[in-house]
């Protein structure tokens, strides 16, 4: 499979194939490698390569990023399959509507603005609480609040869009 991976922000081509536990893979311009990989527990991989034994742990983060622990290292990896989408590139637009997404799962404890309000960048719009910690979600820009899907008492998931500012 031919992919592109971004490791801590550095993008490289990545190829791999698997047959049973036997894997062949190549990262960027490096030589092709041959090894053995088994997912021994969900999200935990045992990889044997050139005599070394690696225990690799993978957990998904926000926006499709995967956090990978290997040895003493903690890497943020994006895996992009070019056949499926142009993917992985973060939106960097500052024009047009911007979403306000919940930074953590929690409960909406206060809504500080209403649809149609003019809001300023950095102005607090919604307060989400979880585990005795409150987080004030601030407007990403000057503009108008055109959508508001959070109500006080709602339970929200991390990444859930609660408001849109245009």
């Amino acid at each position, binding site marked *: 499979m031919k992919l592109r991976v971004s490791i801590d922000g550095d993008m490289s081509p990545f190829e791999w194939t698997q047959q049973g536990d036997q894997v062949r893979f190549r990262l960027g311009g490096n030589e092709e490698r041959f090894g053995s990989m088994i997912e021994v527990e969900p999200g935990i991989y045992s990889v044997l390569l050139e005599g070394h034994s*690696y225990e690799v742990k993978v957990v998904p983060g926000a*926006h499709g990023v995967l956090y990978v622990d290997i040895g003493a290292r903690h890497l943020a990896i994006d895996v992009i399959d070019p056949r499926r989408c142009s993917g992985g590139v973060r939106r960097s637009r500052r024009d047009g509507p911007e979403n306000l997404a919940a930074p953590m*799962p*929690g409960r909406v404890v206060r809504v500080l603005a209403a649809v149609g309000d003019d809001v300023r960048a950095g102005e607090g719009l919604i307060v989400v609480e979880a585990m*005795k910690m409150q987080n004030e979600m601030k407007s990403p820009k000057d503009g108008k609040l055109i959508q508001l899907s959070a109500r006080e008492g709602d339970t929200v998931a991390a*990444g859930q869009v609660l408001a849109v500012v245009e």
Partner: protein
Amino acid sequence: MFGKVLVANRGEIAVRILRGLREMGIRSAAVYSDVDRAALHVRMADEAIAIGPAPSRDSYLNIDRILDAAAACGAEAIHPGYGFLSENAEFAAACESRRVVFIGPSAAAIRAMGSKTQGRRLAKAGGAPTVPGTESPIVDLEQARRTAGAIGYPILLKAAAGGGGKGMRRVNREEEFEAAFRDASSEAERAFQDGAVYIEKLVENPRHIEIQVFGDQQGNLVHLGERECSIQRRHQKVIEESPSPLVTLHPELRQRMGEAAVAVARAAGYSNAGTVEFLVDGDRNFYFLEMNTRLQVEHPITELVTGLDLVHLQLRVAAGEKLPMRQEEVCWRGSAMECRIYAEDPDNHFFPSPGRITQLSRPFGPGVRLDSGVYPGWVVPMDYDPLLAKLIVWGGTRDTTIRRMMRALDEYFVAGIKTNVGFFRQLLDDSEFRLGHLHTGFIEQFFARRQKPEPSGGGAEEAVAALAAAHFSAKLKLDGVRPAAAPSSRWLLDGRAEGAR
């Protein structure tokens, strides 16, 4: 000894107490809120009583419901754990009037230490040094400003009823005083329904070292040595250890601080487990900070170095038994350290991370103790404190303990929710930490100086990491929408949808 004890708490500390009860052959009753029906403490108790909806004020903080539950099941005593009602003098008094034993000090002792200003007076009465400052809350702003000037800036304004950094402000110059006072007072009012604020000299980058004390109802009091808790983030302890590296270098400190702590406890008429917290400055002067009138989160490190079981001891003393040892019989062996495992995301501002635990691998083997309140499949509720577990390690020396802790952290894996396990690995690898150069500003400085590890030779680690990520990613796509729990799966789904744009 009691026949049945009710545990008025939840999470890891409820589980820890339930284990102690079972080990002593005492029947146990748990209480639980609606979201805790399947919690580990409910599973592990002999009896369980529902006490209301998720919000703490309607369940774990509701004195009447707790006392009704104790009456309903016929418990002779209540263990409050830490947090919730554990330092609530009104609750202790209500237990006394309902003739159920409160496992802790008397209501009077709790009340005395509940006010920081009164605690300071008691400490002085006991002969323990306190940080220069005022003995009573500020009433006259002008006079307070003069006092602050006399003590010398920087100073701290602190809530009299306070804790956890709430209602606390640093004041560097006289010009800042008035605004800081207003902020501190209103924050204290919101947090504790009490706006009283007092002044303390600010000790720059102190160590936080505390002494465990224990008293029986016959008036015997001992100390069980110190715990160093200087590693804090936003005034919350994250790593504790015993002995303190400072005490290892200067062993006489243990006895001096221990005697001061016992004197303070004696002045307060203290019995059962308590902790006297001190600040220690660069010249090894120590100052009374406050007394915690309950079992401390970090009590296991004291258990590991002394070989005592503090929960068993609490039960014995509360049942009227004498302390089984004299001060000179307390001895210390080796080095113990605790990491508090929180449901929080170090990659995202340490935001809380409740939700379903989909995968949980935990450390085992020599010198490793895990006090945990969770299990695989459990949905960590968003309603309570994010402490999932405490990883506690013992070794012959501090160096062995740190390496063993690293080894144990390597064996720890949690998926479904985020934890700070990886953050501890970075912290413990820090050379200043290894050297034992600890102070309460440590983590802030660590954040400033930490660097990404250099890529290893040949990039094999990156390539292997990419390989695992590629497999994981392919599996996620294959699985489609996974039938997991609401919060975490929805979050996962959102994350993937975003990434696919």
